[in-house]
């Protein structure tokens, strides 16, 4: 039975540059993982007076992040904002399964092959690890760089509170009961498209987001399959190299390069995963968050329209008119506030998305070229050696 325990390491945020504002800098410098649980060290550096100290660190679990996200979503005030999507649960299933299979197959492999496979698996574990840390970090940084959300009290508690948050988490669950989330999610599409849109901007956004959402979800799945297949090819090179090494001596030296080829191939697969697949994954979630905003606005619009109808009815009956007027005014205000902030959010979202895509696509292309050039020189070396021996 192989138990993987990962330790301290340095991580640099790979996505869009969010950590710019000196007044509040957040990062996750290290993390610890044991069996199922990952413990993140959330590190804050701040000049804001609202915090007790200028620099501090707290340990946080994945569930704490979810708690934070949910409380933000449930906060009425933020209805007009795109709440950054919650980081997905750390998923070590794939490498764990592979590790298990490797343990079972140990007897059939040569020692060298086994070691290489183990190394590859460890690299995979590390990659999953890096990804999950990155995604949690980005979540916090999105919050810290948002003018409104960064001031959220719960956010500050999350950053600062040096005790276990699990008690708070339980209370929150009881209080809200996750009512917003429990609402039938599938209804939002119908609601969004069903409501008569008065604003051109939102009309366009609606059409775009609904369509884009489906497409990007599809692309993410296909990209995941592609990167997985790529990994399989890279892994096969390990086995080939292992057997070749045990066969013939002369070709042996040149074919040691086969192992390097595998490393390069493996690197290509994982870089593709990070830059392309992760990008698509992230924006699938982000698009969903944007859609949630539209949903909330659509609800507000529906409420507004209903309040208008109610007011008319009240006026007709001359009963409870003041109340109805009040209600109507509130609904209108809410709706207008949502529309205004919503427009701002969606516009900045566009910009953010384009920037992120550009960065990642450029980086991916550059990495592909770098790895391919590496492969080329390795292969050329191999061929030269073979021809001369």
């Amino acid at each position, binding site marked *: 039975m192989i138990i993987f325990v990962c330790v301290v390491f340095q991580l640099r945020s790979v996505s869009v540059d969010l950590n710019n504002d000196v007044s509040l800098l957040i990062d996750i410098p290290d993390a610890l993982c044991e069996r199922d649980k990952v413990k993140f060290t959330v590190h804050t550096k701040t000049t804001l007076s609202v915090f007790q100290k200028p620099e501090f660190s707290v340990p946080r679990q994945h569930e704490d992040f979810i708690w934070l996200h949910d409380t933000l979503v449930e906060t009425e005030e933020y209805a007009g904002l795109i709440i950054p999507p919650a980081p997905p649960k750390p998923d070590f299933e794939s490498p764990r399964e592979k590790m298990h299979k490797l343990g079972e197959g140990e007897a059939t492999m040569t020692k060298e092959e086994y070691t290489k496979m183990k190394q590859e698996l460890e690299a995979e574990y590390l990659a999953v690890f890096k990804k999950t840390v990155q995604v949690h970090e980005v979540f916090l940084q999105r919050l810290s760089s948002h003018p409104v959300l960064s001031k959220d009290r719960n956010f500050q508690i999350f950053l600062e509170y040096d005790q276990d948050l699990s008690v708070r988490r339980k209370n929150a669950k009881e209080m809200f009961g996750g009512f917003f989330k429990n609402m039938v999610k599938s209804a939002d599409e119908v609601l969004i498209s069903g409501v008569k849109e008065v604003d051109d901007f939102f009309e366009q956004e609606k059409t775009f987001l609904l369509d884009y959402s489906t497409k990007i979800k599809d692309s993410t799945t296909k990209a995941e399959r592609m990167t997985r297949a790529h990994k399989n090819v890279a892994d096969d090179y390990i086995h080939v190299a292992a057997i070749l090494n045990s066969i013939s001596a002369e070709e042996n030296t040149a074919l040691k390069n086969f192992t390097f080829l595998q490393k390069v191939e493996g690197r290509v697969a994982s870089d593709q995963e990070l830059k392309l697949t992760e990008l698509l994954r992230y924006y699938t979630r982000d698009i969903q968050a944007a859609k949630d905003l539209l949903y909330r606005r659509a609800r507000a619009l529906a409420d507004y329209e209903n309040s208008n109808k109610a007011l008319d009815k009240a006026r007709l009956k001359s009963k409870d008119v003041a109340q109805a007027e009040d209600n109507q005014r509130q609904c209108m205000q809410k709706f207008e506030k949502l529309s205004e902030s919503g427009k701002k959010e969606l516009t900045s979202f566009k910009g953010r998305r384009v920037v992120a895509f550009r960065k990642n696509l450029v980086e991916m*292309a550059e990495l592909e070229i770098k790895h391919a050039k590496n492969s080329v020189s390795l292969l050329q070396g191999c061929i030269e050696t*073979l021809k001369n021996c």
Partner: protein
Amino acid sequence: MERKPPPFPDSEEQEAHSEKAEEESGDDDDDDDDDGGEDIFTGNDLFSEEGSYPGVQEPSVDNQHASNGLRSDDDEQDLFAEARVELSLDRSSTKGIREVTRSSPSAPDISYKSSTSKMSFEKPEEEESNDKFELNIAVTHPEKVGDGMNAYMVYKVSTQTTLPMFKSRAFSVRRRFSDFLGLFEKLSEKHAQNGYIVPLPPEKSVVGMTKVKVGKEDTSSTEFVEKRRAALERYLHRVVSHQNLLQDPDVREFLEKDELPRAVSTQTLSGAGFLKMINKASDAVNKMTIKMNESDNWFEEKLQEVENEEQQLRKLHAVVDALVNHRKDLCGNTAVFAKSMAMLGNSEDNTALSRALSQLAEVEDKMEQLHQEQASNDFFIFAELLADYVRLLGGVRNCFDQRIKTWQRWQDAQSTLQKKREVEAKLLWANKPDKLQQAKDEITEWEAKVTQYERDFERICATVRKEVLRFEKEKSNDFKVHIIKYLESLLVSQQRLIKYWEAFLPEAKAIS
């Protein structure tokens, strides 16, 4: 099945030798000390005093093998009759001397050249090793003949050569798969038991062929035909690169003759069938092996090496097979992804990003192409090479087994001789003069056999040694050539990859 070999300048004796070879191949007996080719062993025999060369049948067939009775009867002997043994011996005794002198400069291959035709061809090769004759063979143009379940594929076998033994310099014939199997059967019958490594042809495939027969025009059946065509070509290359096999008239006929009689016995016998036979035989032989005390560890060690290598290659082949499949997977997934990316690009409202995403979709499409080609290379250059050698190593094992069988025959003859001597001794004691003569005759007969079989054993030892070394050299070279080719294909692939991504990069940078 008698076949007159093509006429040569000094034809008479060759015909005699060849005839002997042909007829012997018709013999059922397992222990046939068959000559293969043109009676190559007569030259050898001349170095021994006796010059007796029975090597044909078991004692039960009453051919006078002892040298005593030889000279008297031969001259009137029909060239094509059974008593060819004496005939050839007689001829070669005059010719042989010439051969000896001629062949002595070419030391290593000395025992295996006898016919003049061979000399005239091979002497240049040995004495002026740079003066190589050319022989290029290609198997092309697979064509389907007939319909339904009786249909079959015909391949064009084209030969280009400067070898004088062929009728012309360039010619081609049409052959079907069973013809190749028939060639293999003939060659292995004649040569395998002398310790030669006879190359194995590709295996029969009921599934593959049925698809082709039924007329399924899909990628898997075209792939199958291509795989087979390439394998048949490699098979022929291996056959002709073997000195002794090239001399076999069956090979020549296969390449040259317009119409070949249909090889009927190949229904059951194929490369796979032969391998099965080898494996069964070697199991049986292994039970005997324990008793053989090796004066020379070389054979034991080599056999072990061969067996290990065969195992390793099998493993490697399985892994490369997995690689091919995974790459095909990757290919499919990339294609699907490319389409999805194109859709996403269409949906994207930022113009520059939209264009970049469409470009990305195109790059991924090109990647799919690359993966497809690479998978094909993985298979044809690498996987098939491994499959060939797994089969060939089985053939090598057979050589070793044949050697052991030869040894066993010698030992058996020795023990029979011993028994005969005991009988003689008993008869001497019992004083029965009439039976005594018979006993003495039998002893002489068996003494000759023992000598012969011992010589056979020595000969096969030498052959196996030589063959194994030749095989190893060829294998090492083959592997090297193919691995270089494979790596070069990977190299080309990577270089194209660089081009595609370098073309994409400015598009990505242009996003704003």
